[in-house]
């Protein structure tokens, strides 16, 4: 998810600490803590599968783009950086397929994009 989970958790930690202090207006405390609870719930939902999702998607993208290699460093930040690189290349490949009128290639890319939204789908998704 974007913004990245660690950066959000760090911010929420500070927010909760500030709301633990006296003098915070009650409506603002309620709003801050209510939103914090919802964000923590979403973070908890995606955390266990985050690395697996990125590894799976990076593998699928490499296959589609004709690249070899594998994810050696399993830090989420490294996996995400590789995912960004591959999805940038996917955009270039999709533009090339559109310009070439290569429908089979376009269909394959759309299939991967559809799969990417299934991988990212959360329990409270509106679509």
């Amino acid at each position: 998810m974007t913004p990245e989970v660690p950066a959000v958790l760090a911010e929420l930690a500070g927010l909760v600490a500030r709301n633990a202090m006296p003098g915070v207006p009650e409506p603002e405390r309620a709003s801050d803590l209510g939103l914090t609870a919802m964000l923590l719930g979403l973070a908890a939902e995606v955390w266990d599968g985050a690395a697996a999702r990125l590894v799976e998607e990076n593998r699928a993208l490499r296959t589609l783009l004709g690249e070899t290699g594998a994810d050696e460093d399993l830090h989420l930040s490294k996996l995400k950086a590789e995912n960004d690189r591959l999805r940038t290349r996917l955009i270039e490949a999709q533009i090339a397929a559109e310009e070439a009128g290569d429908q089979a290639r376009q269909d394959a890319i759309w299939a991967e994009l559809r799969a990417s939204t299934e991988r990212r789908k959360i329990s409270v998704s509106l679509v």
Partner: protein
Amino acid sequence: MAHSLEPRVAAYLTSKLPGATEVAIEGLERISGGASRETYRFRARWREGGDARERRMILRRDPPASLIETERRTEFAAYRAFHGSAVPVPEMLWLEEDPAHLDHPFFIAEELAGFQASPQMLLAGGYDAVLPRLAERKWTILGEIARADPEALGLTEVMEAPPLDGCWKRELDYWEGVFDRDQAEPLPIARAAIRWLRAHPPPPAQKLSVVHGDYRTGNFLYDQAGEIHGVLDWEMAHLGDPLEDLAWGFNPIWEFGRGLAGGLLPRERAIAIWARASGLNADPQALHWWILFNCVKGQAIWVGSAGAFIKGGNKAPIMIYPAWWLLNAQDRAILKVMGKL
């Protein structure tokens, strides 16, 4: 404990209410939500001509960085233009762009108290009996906005009036620019949609209309009888193609998972109500273009929300939630509208 803004708001109102003495602000509290402006409600009391006066008011203040970069002067003008018309809006009282008073620019309006805005509350079951009436009012009011003459309302003086065949490009250029500025990661689905939109432009607008820009379930005040008492959140108001406003509510995100336009009724019924009220047509192909455009616009807003957090301009949790909740759902909405899902 009194909010720290109360004495500063009291000082401001004292300067704006000639003849008023003993101006006091009570119960100032922030209203949750409001990712584009900080919104507070309060009660103002003062004495004037020997009489005690009281009025409930709303303060909308610019935050350090916003989910939506908007021009508050335009928003204020849009509210004022429709006040007293068939489009219910709260009365605007003062616009203040000098940050000396409350650190950031702001405006103050009357509070329309006693009504709800929450779509979750509306769609939770307790209002089911009045949803048809509310839906009728929702799209009738939107039709009234589309039917209005921007020049007669004085809005061509504060809003750019694009040519009829340029409305779509102006909007698409703007929101693609938000992606270029704020995106923190590659967005292949949104970028593909933008290429499709540019390759298949819509016909010229039937007329130049006021476009609310965020007219959806959740941005109006309703009561238990299904009446709408105030259309809110005009911060993206501009002049453009009236189909843009109709299509924003058809972004699948705003079905709230119910498979109905705005979570309220079938899309074709909503279109018929709007067409009757506006006197305009909703060409299916043009409307499809605008629905896809609005999916892209929605994604740009969620991307901008994430961008404001990442760049450090606004670290409030309200900036994170739309991004986490909606970025993927909006991608899925784009796929759905493009026939890919």
